[in-house]
């Protein structure tokens, strides 16, 4: 299908400038790493001395991994219901979950946890993260599914594949690229989240963003700049890996 005419040059240039603007504050913050000699070693030494930052980083990674796995399973189920069975309830729920302000999700889950008497901890945070990341993951999987030929699955069935064989040998490999990019998206969203974690985590069990938030009161120290560098680097890697994977499908 052909598309609308390309945007005029000046507009393309303007958009490039607009998209470059958000990099300025980040690069400004990271400038000491380039311009001040010895800053890198100093900042990372400070970072490793702050053991609570390291502890919360690992806690965040654990929560992000757990919630992303769970989120992928639910997202795949939701994508299957919407794409294959036109399930209206699920589709509206996905929508609601994406639009819901974080604070509402956070407080309503805190309320539910306290009503059923669940102790707040890493598990409650991971469940809470999965309950919003699944909607975004499902979007990635669904947009992939819309570009697939349903005949593939019919062919597998005609050739005698059981539903399980078909799932393991046809569906999963076909969806592997979108599963990877959905997983990276879930990890990012989970690692990024402050508010929902603040509501659903147990006392003294801060995630990395919560810990950073707490430390910001004492200024933007070198250890936080080191964290910024790490997080910016992670984002670069995730985008470099995830983006071509989720865009690649369009060429098929």
């Amino acid at each position: 299908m052909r598309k609308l005419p390309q945007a005029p040059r000046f507009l393309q240039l303007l958009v490039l400038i607009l998209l470059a603007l958000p990099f300025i504050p980040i690069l400004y913050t990271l400038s000491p790493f380039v311009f001040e000699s010895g800053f890198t070693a100093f900042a990372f030494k400070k970072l490793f001395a702050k053991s609570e930052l390291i502890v919360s980083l690992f806690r965040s990674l654990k929560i992000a991994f757990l919630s992303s796995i769970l989120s992928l399973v639910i997202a795949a189920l939701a994508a299957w219901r919407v794409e294959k069975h036109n399930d209206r309830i699920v589709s509206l729920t996905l929508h609601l979950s994406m639009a819901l302000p974080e604070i509402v999700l956070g407080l309503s889950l805190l309320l539910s946890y306290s009503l059923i008497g669940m102790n707040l901890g890493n598990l409650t945070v991971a469940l809470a993260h999965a309950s919003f990341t699944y909607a975004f993951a499902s979007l990635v999987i669904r947009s992939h599914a819309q570009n697939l030929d349903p005949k593939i699955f019919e062919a597998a069935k005609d050739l005698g594949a059981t539903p399980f064989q078909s799932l393991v040998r046809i569906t999963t490999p076909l969806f592997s690229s979108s599963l990877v990019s959905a997983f990276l998206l879930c990890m990012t969203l989970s690692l990024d989240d402050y508010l929902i974690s603040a509501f659903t985590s147990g006392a003294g069990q801060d995630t990395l963003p919560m810990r950073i938030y707490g430390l910001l009161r004492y200024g933007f120290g070198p250890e936080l700049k080191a964290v910024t560098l790490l997080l910016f680097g992670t984002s670069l890697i995730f985008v470099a890996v995830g983006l071509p994977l989720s865009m690649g499908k369009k060429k098929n």
Partner: protein
Amino acid sequence: MTKRTLKQKIPQAALYLWIAFFVASPLVLTFVLSFFSRNARGGFSSDLTLHNVLQLFDATYISILFKSLRLASLTAFLCALFGFPIAYVIATSTPKKKLYYYALLLIPFWTNFIVRTQALRQLFSPAGLDLALSPTVIIQIGMLMNYLPLFVLPCAVAIERLPASVWEAASDLGARRPSIWIKIILPMLKKPLIHGSLMVFVPALGEFVIPDILGGAQGFYLGGLISEQFLKARNWPFGAALSLLLLLSAALIVFLQKNNSPKDIAGEVP
């Protein structure tokens, strides 16, 4: 029930259970909680009252509410204003260029937003650019930067799906560029544009962290008020009542989408 339908029912039931536990019932409980009373120990009791809801109309809270509504609607407007040209350029560019545009859009977006927002604060601080901007303006810039991709991503997909034949037909029939845009393209994009703006407006209404980091004492909005009620003042019923507006605006999105087929309800996150 045949074996085959049973195999489909189990995953379906699992999904519905998940939705019931983690989406539906928490929201219903929050709604109900806003009519409960607070008890002395910072908990709540099931004596029904309208006190919390009536308290919302207190002048202090009304002014915070309006302040938040203004911030969220201005953010949605600015995201549409800047986001539309971006989405248009992305949607109509070659696949290779598109990859670069998306990468530019997503790299800051995927960098932790607390450090990103703090970096913005550093930039505008006296030690940085020192433009002497008011906190409200800085908050607005922070909101725009953070929410822009939420508008651009679904909007770019919608533009990409417009067939070129529409454009060609219009220009073959002698329409000029501006009138093609105003009379044909924009009306065709009405739904995705409204939807994209709501996807910014609703979460922005409950935003807490960005105003808090960038605004200092002046960064107290609805999100801050709600989390204060829950995490500090321990007045959960009133916190729930404050979030009623957010619940309602989220319900509005669902209501507007209700008449679309599930497959139309799509944006895309690359």
